[in-house]
């Protein structure tokens, strides 16, 4: 990994630095006599002094002339530091500035300081969880620094007094030490959990440890013992006021519980993960209530410690997270962690996808630790959820969508040993298929686990992979016919074209369409589309949903035909069919609901565009044409064979205020056209709302949301609310356009987009009702 290279480089630099120090007694001596300086490196490598040659070569260059080989990239230019620039040079000392602070780490701690310090550390820990580097958070603590450096070889060496164990001062040496060590051990677990999964360095998390070790060689149980002793010690302090005692014990207990809940070996925690995290969350109210008992010790933290860390970045300020924010973050972390363990309840593949998707759509999105935990839970011990093979998962999904009770998925095929037997061939081809699609399929889950911006970007790449999957599956579908004996459907036309079911490629196409929908929908969520694009982008979403409807109906036709063929279906087979039909029905309802609502919004924005009620750009833009902007918007889909990307003219016609619209009677042409379009919008929004309501009536089993029903229902309900807002907006707009009678509509109506995060549903950007200020 990139990080490793950087770390090893940093270590080398550090060693160089250390040995150079040994070498020169007088600081700056090397600057005075550069040419005669001997450089010895511990690693015994020969070093040549090139100063003279370098100076000679440099003397023929002009100031500012860049000597650059193709390998010197911008990235390296940005990585360069200028020595003696206080903003870049971490070793630079201003006048009278000292290298370190005079903080006495062995100073006896008052109980209120222990509470204060624990809460300060918690803030720093959460800052790290939020994505800030350790160097600007936890590693600014003198206490943590002392425990971790020089690196302790035994846990016993990780003490504040590194010389000799001191007796007494128990608040520091017993209580606070145990807390700090447990905190670091928690960080170790977080670091390793995240490091094992897919995440983006710097944007999700900064993994750099600056050549420190987070006690990774020591067993959590040892640290747990220390916590145990610390709790016991505190409880014995009879002279200590009960309130302090309780405040300290609850913090130690929380640490104990988090450490346990963060256990790396999922097999040890998965049976009771929900409870472990609920137990953590249960303590948080008390932590909050007792926060005021603490006195922060500001001087126990300093950015100057950064100078000791192996790092090539300039000194950066300490990240200050308010206690309330850190507390709220931890509260969400505990809640999300408890909830995420429900993923282990397997109710079929599409239910698993619903869970993953609903979980990741939470606001705020679960923290990176949780997102990586979800990835681990989804796939560990070489099994999905630690118990299901990828083959089973994909077969479950194929059965649910396209192949209920089908011979292609019959596990008995694998028992046939005679190569001439068609079932032997089926087993062989199908296992090849699973091998091919396993990764892209799991990648859909992975993509959803990313931060939302990345999820969209990743889907844009993944959808291209699914294009290939679909094309390959199409070939395979054709090959498989000779073994399944599939008979084509004849279309009723005079030519009598054969229509084949293409089950595997149908499955792939379905997922491709879903990804395309998500890409557009996430575009709305992330604020990618500007106001003047809403009408076109909702039209495009409706277009995609329309393609999905056609596709699901096609699948339905073939499944129904197979079900009706004269054959004795077993009860199990019938159940399988029933599952498939119910799934298709739900998906069809959802696609139709999406389509109608998207049309309604597209029409609403189209109708209102001439009145420029929403802040939008001028019609004519220098450097750009509508065609070029259309090309940019469609870029993610240009390489896909189907569904066909709408051409510019198609989209322009669909979102034009004039084409194909008869102005309503008695209105001026612009308002008249608007009214006609608003009529269509009104109709679409009514149908859309009905469809969303129909969707909300499905049971959890049918909707594939058994372990995430509340989230799913809330999401559907939020869309219904968005539909209602949309209907109101359409109605007021109609009224405004009707009453305008030649007066400017702008004076009649106002409109605004909800602020970020204030929509009822992130996928549905509905302008707040243009309220009528006419009367």
């Amino acid at each position, binding site marked *: 990994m990139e990080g490793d290279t950087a770390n090893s480089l940093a270590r080398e630099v550090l060693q160089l630095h250390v040995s150079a120090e040994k070498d020169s007694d007088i600081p700056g001596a090397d600057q005075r006599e550069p040419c005669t300086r001997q450089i010895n490196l511990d690693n015994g490598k020969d070093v040549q002094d090139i100063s003279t040659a370098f100076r000679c070569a440099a003397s023929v260059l002009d100031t500012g002339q860049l000597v650059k080989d193709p390998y010197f990239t*911008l990235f390296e230019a940005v990585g360069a530091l200028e020595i003696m620039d206080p903003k870049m040079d971490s070793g630079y000392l201003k006048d009278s500035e000292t290298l370190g602070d005079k903080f006495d780490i062995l100073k006896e701690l008052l109980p209120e300081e222990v509470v204060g310090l624990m809460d300060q550390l918690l803030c720093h820990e959460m800052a790290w969880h939020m994505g800030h580097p350790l160097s600007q958070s936890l590693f600014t603590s003198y206490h943590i620094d002392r425990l971790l450096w020089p690196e302790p070889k035994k846990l016993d060496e990780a003490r504040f007094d590194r010389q000799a164990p001191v007796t007494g001062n128990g608040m520091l040496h017993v209580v606070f030490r145990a807390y700090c060590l447990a905190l670091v051990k928690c960080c170790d677990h977080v670091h390793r959990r995240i490091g094992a999964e897919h995440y983006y360095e710097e944007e999700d998390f900064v993994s750099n440890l600056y050549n420190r070790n987070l006690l990774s060689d020591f067993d959590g149980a040892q640290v747990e013992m220390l916590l145990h002793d610390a709790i016991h010690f505190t409880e014995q302090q009879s002279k200590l006021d009960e309130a302090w005692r309780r405040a300290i014990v609850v913090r130690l207990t929380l640490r104990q519980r988090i450490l346990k809940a963060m256990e790396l070996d999922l097999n040890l925690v998965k049976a009771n993960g929900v409870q472990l995290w609920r137990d953590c969350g249960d303590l948080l109210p008390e932590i909050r209530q007792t926060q005021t008992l603490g006195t922060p010790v500001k001087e126990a933290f300093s950015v100057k410690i950064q100078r000791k860390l192996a790092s090539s970045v300039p000194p950066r300020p300490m990240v200050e997270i308010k206690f309330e924010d850190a507390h709220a973050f931890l509260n969400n972390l505990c809640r999300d962690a408890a909830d995420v363990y429900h993923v282990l309840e397997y109710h079929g593949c599409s239910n698993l996808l619903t869970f993953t998707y609903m979980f990741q759509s939470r606001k705020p999105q679960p923290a990176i630790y949780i997102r990586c935990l979800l990835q681990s839970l989804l796939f560990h011990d070489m099994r999905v959820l630690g118990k299901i093979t990828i083959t089973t998962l994909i077969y479950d999904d194929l059965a649910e969508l396209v192949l209920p009770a089908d011979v292609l998925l019959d596990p008995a095929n694998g028992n046939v040993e005679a190569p001439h037997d068609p079932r032997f061939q089926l087993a062989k081809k199908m296992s090849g298929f699973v091998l091919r699609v396993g990764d892209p399929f799991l990648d859909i889950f992975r993509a959803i686990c990313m931060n939302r911006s990345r999820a969209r970007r990743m889907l844009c790449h993944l*959808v291209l992979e699914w294009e290939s999957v679909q094309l390959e599956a199409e070939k395979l579908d054709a090959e498989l016919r000779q073994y399944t004996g599939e008979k084509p459907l004849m279309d009723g036309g005079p030519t009598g074209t054969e229509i084949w079911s293409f089950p595997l490629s149908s499955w792939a196409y379905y997922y491709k369409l879903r990804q395309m929908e998500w890409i557009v929908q996430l575009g709305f969520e992330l604020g990618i589309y500007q106001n003047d694009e809403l009408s076109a982008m909702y039209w495009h979403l409706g277009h995609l949903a329309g393609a999905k409807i056609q596709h699901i109906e096609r699948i339905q036709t073939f499944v129904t035909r197979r079900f009706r063929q004269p054959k004795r279906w077993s009860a199990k087979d019938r159940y399988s069919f029933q599952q498939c039909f119910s799934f298709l029905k739900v998906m069809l309802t959802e696609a139709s609901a999406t389509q109608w609502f998207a049309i309604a919004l597209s029409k609403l924005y189209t109708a209102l565009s001439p009145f420029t009620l929403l802040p939008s750009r001028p019609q004519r*833009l220098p450097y750009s044409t509508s*065609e070029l902007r259309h090309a940019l918007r469609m*870029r993610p889909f240009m390489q896909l064979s189907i569904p066909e990307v709408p051409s510019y003219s198609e989209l322009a016609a669909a979102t034009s205020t004039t084409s194909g619209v008869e102005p309503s009677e008695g209105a001026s042409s612009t308002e008249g056209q608007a009214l006609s379009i608003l009529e269509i919008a009104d109709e679409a929004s009514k149908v859309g709302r009905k469809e969303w309501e129909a969707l909300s009536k499905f049971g959890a089993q049918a909707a594939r949301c058994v372990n995430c029903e509340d989230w799913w229902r809330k999401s559907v309900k939020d869309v219904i609310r968005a539909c209602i807002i949309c209907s109101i907006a359409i109605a007021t707009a109609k009224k405004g356009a009707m009453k305008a009678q030649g007066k400017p509509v702008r004076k009649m109506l106002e409109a605004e987009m909800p602020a970020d995060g204030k929509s009822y549903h992130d996928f549905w950007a509905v302008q707040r009702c243009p309220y009528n200020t006419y009367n």
Partner: protein
Amino acid sequence: MTDREGLQYVQYHSSKESTYLAAIRQLISNDLSEPYSIYVYRYFLYQWGDLCFLALDEHDNMLGVVISKLEPHRGGPMRGYIAMLAVKKEHRGKGIATKLVRMAIDVMIERDADEIALETEVTNTAAMKLYERLGFLRSKRLHRYYLNGNSAFRFVLFVKENAFTSRLGYDENDGDEDQPELPPSA
């Protein structure tokens, strides 16, 4: 070139480094918590000095600057990139930034650019408005792109008609491994 307000707009040239570089750095680092090293400026100015424009007042004080580059993007389209844009606080809102950006874009188009890209902080409404009014679209959001934890939008402007042929597929040349064009600082 001098405008009505008496501002001159000047194209940079490497021969002018000693006159302007210090002021350019000063102007740009005002907006940054962490300065770029001199190598970053030279990286751009040495290779694409003609894509850098300065706005100067009648006393030659620097009021604004744009720094950019133009090169084939990962073997694909010719991509112009606006790396830095800064205008002195008290002179904002007068169209100086727009003028500077347009001058840079004009040269990029002259030099056969297919597209132009840049990033802005999602909270920087003034900058977003500027680019949107020139025809840029937001193409993606970059999570926690800046040091301060803020996200960015990548803005893209296609300037050539051959969009459908030369730009098939999603950012083929812009994979996840893609490093930010200019590693951000803010």
